[in-house]
């Protein structure tokens, strides 16, 4: 302890050990906290997915009772979305934004610390409900009433933890916006910002506009359950479907929160390894903004089967289909960036390429889902599960992995092992398809989602999917091993780790200094 105190006095009162991490206001420290936390949550959520896949390996119940299966499905989704993917993106934002715009740190460092430290507490609260006598939440991550109102003691805990997660996201988003709008180096106009910065700016806007709506929705669940309000009860003049409207008004922008930063990452990596400038920068920005704006008027495509009036169904079908246009612009821009480039295929590039292909496949199935009369068949089957895992796993998660490989040398000053990285890529890509592609088939053949047991004709594809899931999980152990190996090395990486990389972060030494830019660089 005394050593600590001496140390404190020397370097800006910097505490060490655990206290350093608890009290840090540094964007790199906080970024690392976010990223490690997200990796942990990915494994926790992944283990739950493995429980699901193990039970679904064969028809009949082998391991868990139906009630627990539903808890696994619900928790898996909540953990993956709020615990793994969103924090990973915030972690990347923390590391990269100040470096990319030439700032010393985030604009509101103490708030930054707060938005991180809410997470472990909120997730402890959320996960602890699994050990309650009445179990954890089991109504799906969408928490539809009246079913969610039947939950046991876990319900207020789940709702409060979601409130906290929402608060954390809002604070994080406010920080991102303040940083981008206020901390750019002189000369960096908005239309000169790196595209990753743009996608995060727009994502932050989506977060601030949508998370409070979720908070409102779940608050109404709480009062309906405990204080006799009747928002979601017909007998009192309410409607269970009202919850779905409010939830998806949040929920649909949420799925773009999970993909826009990924678009930004891919738009950074593709030019770097094509050694050619990003094609159509301006249209990329406009496309991102259009996707964000459209995302607020498409929500009811998740509710085509609730019996909306015909005009509503048509409206939401059309607006949903429209999203394919700006998303298409992005895909075409990526392809045009590669066109006549000079490409090499290091691990980040491989993941980015796989992203483009597999995300597009997920987008295509999304478009099929948008066709209302066809969605009457697809809805709540494994076809939907296949769709969203294609956009989330080889979509969002691949982009995160690509970003880690891409910026790791900048963060640590150490280069990962390229051969192992490539092996990781191929295993991951092969297994992800073995896991999720067959889900299209069983979905079309009629297997509903959120069931612990199924009719025997669905067996074969479920077995394949389960094998794939375990393979995918093992491949991620390799990822951790690669990270471990990299961190054990001495510092050797060049300041500019990739030949084609562009951006202010590559002008800093590797590893990047604690306070990124003490004096703002000049951008012209």
């Amino acid at each position: 302890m005394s050593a600590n105190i001496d140390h404190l006095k020397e370097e800006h009162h910097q505490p060490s050990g655990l206290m350093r991490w608890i009290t840090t206001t540094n964007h790199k420290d906080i970024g690392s906290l976010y990223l490690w936390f997200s990796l942990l949550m990915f494994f926790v959520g992944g283990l739950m997915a493995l429980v699901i896949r193990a039970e679904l390996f064969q028809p009949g119940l082998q391991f868990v009772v139906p009630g627990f299966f539903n808890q696994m499905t619900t928790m898996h989704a909540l953990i993956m979305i709020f615990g793994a993917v969103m924090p990973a993106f915030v972690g990347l934002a923390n590391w990269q934004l100040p470096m990319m715009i030439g700032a010393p740190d985030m604009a509101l460092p103490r708030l930054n610390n707060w938005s991180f430290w809410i997470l472990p507490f909120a997730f402890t609260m959320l996960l602890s409900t699994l050990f309650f006598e009445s179990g954890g939440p089991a109504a799906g991550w969408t928490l539809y009433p009246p079913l969610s109102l039947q939950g046991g003691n876990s319900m207020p805990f789940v709702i409060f933890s979601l409130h906290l997660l929402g608060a954390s996201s809002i604070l994080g988003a406010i920080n991102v916006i303040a940083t981008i709008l206020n901390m750019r180096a002189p000369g960096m106009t908005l239309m000169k910002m790196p595209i990753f910065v743009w996608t995060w700016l727009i994502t932050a806007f989506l977060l601030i506009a949508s998370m409070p709506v979720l908070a409102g929705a779940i608050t109404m669940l709480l009062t309906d359950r405990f204080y006799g309000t009747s928002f979601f009860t017909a007998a009192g003049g309410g409607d269970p479907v009202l919850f779905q409207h409010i939830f998806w008004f949040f929920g649909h922008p949420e799925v773009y929160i999970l993909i826009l930063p990924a678009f930004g990452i891919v738009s950074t990596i593709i030019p770097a390894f094509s050694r050619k400038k990003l094609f159509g920068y301006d249209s990329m920005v406009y496309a991102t903004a259009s996707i964000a704006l459209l995302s607020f008027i498409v929500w009811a495509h998740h509710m085509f089967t609730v019996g909306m009036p015909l005009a509503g169904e048509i409206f939401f079908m059309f607006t949903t289909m429209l999203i394919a246009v700006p998303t298409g612009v992005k895909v075409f821009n990526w392809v045009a960036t590669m066109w006549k480039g000079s490409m090499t295929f290091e691990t980040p590039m491989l993941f980015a390429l796989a992203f483009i292909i597999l995300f597009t496949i997920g987008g295509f199935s999304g478009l099929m889902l948008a066709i209302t009369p066809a969605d009457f068949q697809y809805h709540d089957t494994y076809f939907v599960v296949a769709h969203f895992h294609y956009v989330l796993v080889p979509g969002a998660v691949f982009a995160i992995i690509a970003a880690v490989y891409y910026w790791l040398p900048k963060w640590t000053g150490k280069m990962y092992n390229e051969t192992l990285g490539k092996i990781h890529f191929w295993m991951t890509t092969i297994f992800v398809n073995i896991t999720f592609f067959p889900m299209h088939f069983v979905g079309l053949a009629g297997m509903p989602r959120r069931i612990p047991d199924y009719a025997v004709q669905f067996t074969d594809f479920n077995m394949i999917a389960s094998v794939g899931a375990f393979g995918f999980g093992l491949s991620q152990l390799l990822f951790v091993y690669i990270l471990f190996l990299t961190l054990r090395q001495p510092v050797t990486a060049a300041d500019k780790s990739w030949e084609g990389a562009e951006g202010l972060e590559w002008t800093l030494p590797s590893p990047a200094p604690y306070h990124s830019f003490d004096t703002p660089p000049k951008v012209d």
Partner: protein
Amino acid sequence: MSGSSYYVPHETKWPFLATVALIVMFIGLANYMNDESNLTLTYTGLALLLLVVYGWFSYVVNESEGGLYDAQVDMSFRWGMAWFIFSEVMFFAAFFGALYYARELSLPWLAGEGTKVSTNQELWPTFENVWPSNGPANYGGDFVVMKAAGIPALNTIILLISGLTVTWAHHGLKEGKRNQLILGLLATVLLGFIFVGFQAYEYSHAYNDLNLKMTSGMYGSTFYMLTGFHGFHVTLGAIMLTVILFRCIKGHFTNENHFGFEAVAWYWHFVDVVWLGLFVFVYWL
């Protein structure tokens, strides 16, 4: 405006403590809702939270008074506050959305309008849609509606005036008229608390005399949810104004540099605007 002078704070313990306080409070509240405990834990968490807020803000105020913040830091705070208020707007939007849905969609449907003829015929054959409504099952029994003309109209005037007084105080601050500043703020704070007082009276009147309760179907639900969260925000705003009042008395702000004042004034205007929405859509129409 260069980044080199940007103030990056060193380590801090407040956010972590704030989280601990919040968690204690929420665990207490959840247990209370589940009928597993009384409110002791909740109040402990709340007290802790207040302490942390006090500590955190004093720290920031000291830094500010110590001249550590430049114009760029000031700007970061402004963006932060502005977007925070926007998030609050969206929070209220959820409840306004629920009100809209009930009045324009769910209640007419239950009464057999639009495509839901069978809903009415098969399930609620006697139900007719007249707003305010507590639904086809007459939840909570008959009740009397809160009229817009009485206290709500008075409260509207109170809040509108308080919006003016806070602006008047702001002018006082900018022009260095200290008395105008303090008087204006004092008036605003008083008006704020009077508003809350009136609303508390209104609630007890509604519960005791009008049989208008949270349990009074959709009308009761939306009424209490909207006015309740609004009242909570007014209370918060009035407390923040009080803090600012004390800071003004202490002479914390200069005519150039007074973001703390402005942030709270923005917040107050936001609360004001939400009330106008409430007055129109909850009480009046």
